[in-house]
């Protein structure tokens, strides 16, 4: 089985920044299958649709999985109210994650806000070869800095208001980097800028996208995104063809 539904006990829950929660769950064999960049569909009691949340990291030995999410609406609010010792109904691991290739290459990871968590698991595999640039609204919104440092990565932080690290956009603090491969997740404009950064230098770049989902496994065709396949523009599906895509495959919407 590639993926399955499992009732997972919440082992640890912590609010790591205002409105941002860090959950570690007991995930059994799902933890062994999970690859960096894949995601889970989490059932929220009372909601018709599961909520897609990236697998921030997975520990095959401990059989645990970690999720970091931000309250964005009703569903994530309800999710934040579930306590340690209670259980979550999780469908995972889903989608195509990052294709890491040779982890002795110099890798650049670029994350924006709540787009940061999906990068952690992949960055760990690169350890000291990873340079990580993360952008946040302000000092209070900064998350996972220590986790990336503990993994041995070089970390730069940018904030919109300059209250921590570089004052400005994360894209403006990666100019000096000379990576051999780029991985990114975050808001659309940031992803577009990172794709251009990589394309200008002829470096491969993989980016993780979001779209509204129903099934999460490729059956309902709900989570469409325009991609190039065999030279043709088609609607691919974030849950099955992604969430990680080769940046050159993406057809960016104008405007």
């Amino acid at each position, binding site marked *: *089985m*590639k*993926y*399955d*539904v499992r009732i997972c006990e919440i082992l640890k829950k912590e609010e790591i920044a205002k409105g941002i929660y860090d959950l570690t769950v007991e995930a059994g064999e799902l933890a062994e299958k999970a690859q960096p960049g894949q995601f889970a569909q989490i*059932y929220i009691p009372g*909601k*018709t*649709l*599961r909520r897609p949340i990236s697998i921030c990291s997975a520990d095959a030995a401990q059989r645990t999985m970690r999720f970091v999410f931000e309250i964005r609406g009703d*569903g994530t609010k309800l999710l934040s109210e579930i306590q340690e010792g209670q259980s979550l109904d999780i*469908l995972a691991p889903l989608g195509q994650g990052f294709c890491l290739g040779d982890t002795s290459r110099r890798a650049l990871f670029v994350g924006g806000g709540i787009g940061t968590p999906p990068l952690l698991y992949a960055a760990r595999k690169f350890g000291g070869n990873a340079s990580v640039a993360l952008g946040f609204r302000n000092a209070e919104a900064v998350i996972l800095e220590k986790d990336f440092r503990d993994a041995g990565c070089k970390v730069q932080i940018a904030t919109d208001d300059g209250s921590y690290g570089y004052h400005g956009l994360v894209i403006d603090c990666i100019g000096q980097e000379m990576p051999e491969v780029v991985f990114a997740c975050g808001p659309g404009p940031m992803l577009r800028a990172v794709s251009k950064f990589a394309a200008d230098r002829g470096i491969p770049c993989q980016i993780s996208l979001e*779209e*509204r*989902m*129903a*099934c*999460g*496994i*490729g*059956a*309902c*065709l*709900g*989570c*469409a*995104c*325009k991609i190039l396949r065999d030279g043709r523009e*088609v*609607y691919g599906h974030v849950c*099955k063809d992604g969430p990680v895509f080769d940046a050159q495959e993406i057809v960016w919407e104008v405007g």
Partner: protein
Amino acid sequence: MADLKVTVAGVEFANPLIAASGTFGFGHEYSEFYPLSTLGGISCKGITLKERPGNPPPRIAETPSGMLNAVGLQNPGVDHFIEKDLPWLRQQGTKILANIAGNTPEEYCQMAEKLSDSDVDMVELNISCPNVKQGGVQFGTSCAGVEGIVSAVRKYCRKPLVVKLSPNVSDIGEIAVAAEAAGADALSMINTLTGMRIDIRTRRPIIRNNTGGLSGPAVFPVAVRMVWQASSRVHIPIIGMGGVSRWEDVVELMLAGASAIQIGTVLFSDPYAPVKILDGLRSYLDSNGIASVTELTGKIQAY
């Protein structure tokens, strides 16, 4: 042990649960969870004569106890379906319904003809997709339209013909009668109800198509009412659907007049719903001494 077999228009299903068109693709993704023979049948994603790209995203919105979709019939076309998808599906030990949609009667007829020479068990005529400008709903909302399209397709269709009705009509009974008179072997209902959500922050519709089709538990009472009204007017069997999420709903919709049941949206919250619903249904029948599930059909005692 109660007998779960049902027969609709001469096709025998091992149990009354059929996956609803558009929610189950062509089966591959759900075969990760259980053998597809768990289900009595599968109604495949709606297909058209030529490949269709579908609508731009977002295509999905959540609603209280339901969801909207405007996928827009993204599909690889009927020939691809017959050559690439059907052979694998055929081996899964479940009945196959091909769900077809078109712009013109000629397109429907051509598809019906191709499928008549294929291995599908039934053809489900989708004249009720609310999400594409010309996806058949123009035929499905008036009696004359329904009669025209069903009698045209009937001439080309050598498989049992199921006509899938739209709930976006004022008198479902009249429409059901028109479909029967024109040669339908069975009816299936309901397709989605047209709905809309707006993001109050951006003042934009959440779905790029502006409107979408409402499904899920929110529409269940509408489905019960429509199946009941239609079944009192026609003699052909009805495949009921719309918001079924528990075994109790299966019993209720069968009492209203359904001979088999399709389930869709519930699969998104619980992919294992078919297994759970069948377990519940079996123990209900056993503990009430009901020998065959077919005994439920139409047994409502209406006032």
